[in-house]
């Protein structure tokens, strides 16, 4: 290891120490290199004799009596594990999902699909009617009015289906979040 590599490694290992402390420490170790070089040693030898920078940093930290909270956090800290759900929670979640949520989901899905499809059908009907009577002369006015009426209905239907889809999606999301929360936190 060269002097620079050693100092870089040491800096990294000192982690959360204050800027001034790190500066002081690095200056001491840098001086050690300077004296060693003037005594005829190579950077490599000096670094070797200084010992592992990680161990040196650990010694410094130990000497500092830093509050634990300020020390550099280790990477593999364990996350607190969520408690296992109780059997009552499992029963509740499974039962409500199987007997309430899933039937409700498909019923509502059917309703929403009906609304959306009817809306499309009405709109297409309106356009078709309009196009048809436009082409064939005699009942032009009647056909025109009928077509326009259907198109107006389609616009209304469009608003209806927009809200139906929106609240259907929101409701589904809310339910999933609710079950997840209940599962992890209990009833």
């Amino acid at each position, binding site marked *: 290891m060269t002097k620079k590599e050693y100092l870089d490694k040491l800096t990294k290992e000192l982690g959360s120490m204050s800027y001034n402390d790190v500066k002081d420490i690095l200056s*001491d170790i840098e*001086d*050690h290199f*300077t*004296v060693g070089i003037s*005594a005829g040693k190579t950077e490599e030898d000096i670094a070797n004799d*200084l*010992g592992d920078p990680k161990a040196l940093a650990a*010694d*410094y930290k130990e000497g500092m009596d830093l509050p634990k909270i300020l020390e550099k956090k280790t990477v593999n800290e364990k996350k607190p594990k969520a408690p296992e759900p109780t059997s009552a929670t499992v029963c509740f979640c499974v039962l409500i999902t199987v007997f309430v949520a899933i039937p409700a989901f498909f019923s509502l899905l059917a309703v929403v699909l009906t609304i959306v499809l009817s809306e499309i059908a009405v709109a297409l009907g309106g356009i078709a009617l309009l196009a048809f009577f436009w082409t064939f002369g005699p009942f032009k006015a009647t056909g025109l009015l009928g077509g326009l009426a259907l198109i107006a209905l389609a616009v209304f239907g469009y608003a209806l289906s927009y809200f139906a889809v929106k609240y259907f999606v929101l409701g589904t999301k809310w339910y999933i979040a609710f079950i997840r929360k209940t599962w992890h936190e209990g009833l």
Partner: protein
Amino acid sequence: MNNQFKKGVLDLCVLTILKKGDSYGYDVADTLSGKIQVSDGTVYPILRKLASDGLVSTYLKESQNGPPRKYYHLTDEGAKKLEADKQEWDVFTKAVREILEDEDK
């Protein structure tokens, strides 16, 4: 050598080295690692701790070659601490030796 053994007595050794006269980090490290099997780096955290506890003081002194060096000086407080620790160490090692020799008989 067992690390647990070393930890407790290195402070004592460093204080003793400085009692003989002021010295700079490299020199203390050299003296210590020449006698005990420790890495040169070991003395720096010790010196820093001793300085923050007021047992040693530091000053900069010009050197013939290179930048000024940081010298360490044993304070009165440090000298007192050294005496106390040394006595404690003597009593302790004597007791340990007696126990170990008793085991050999």
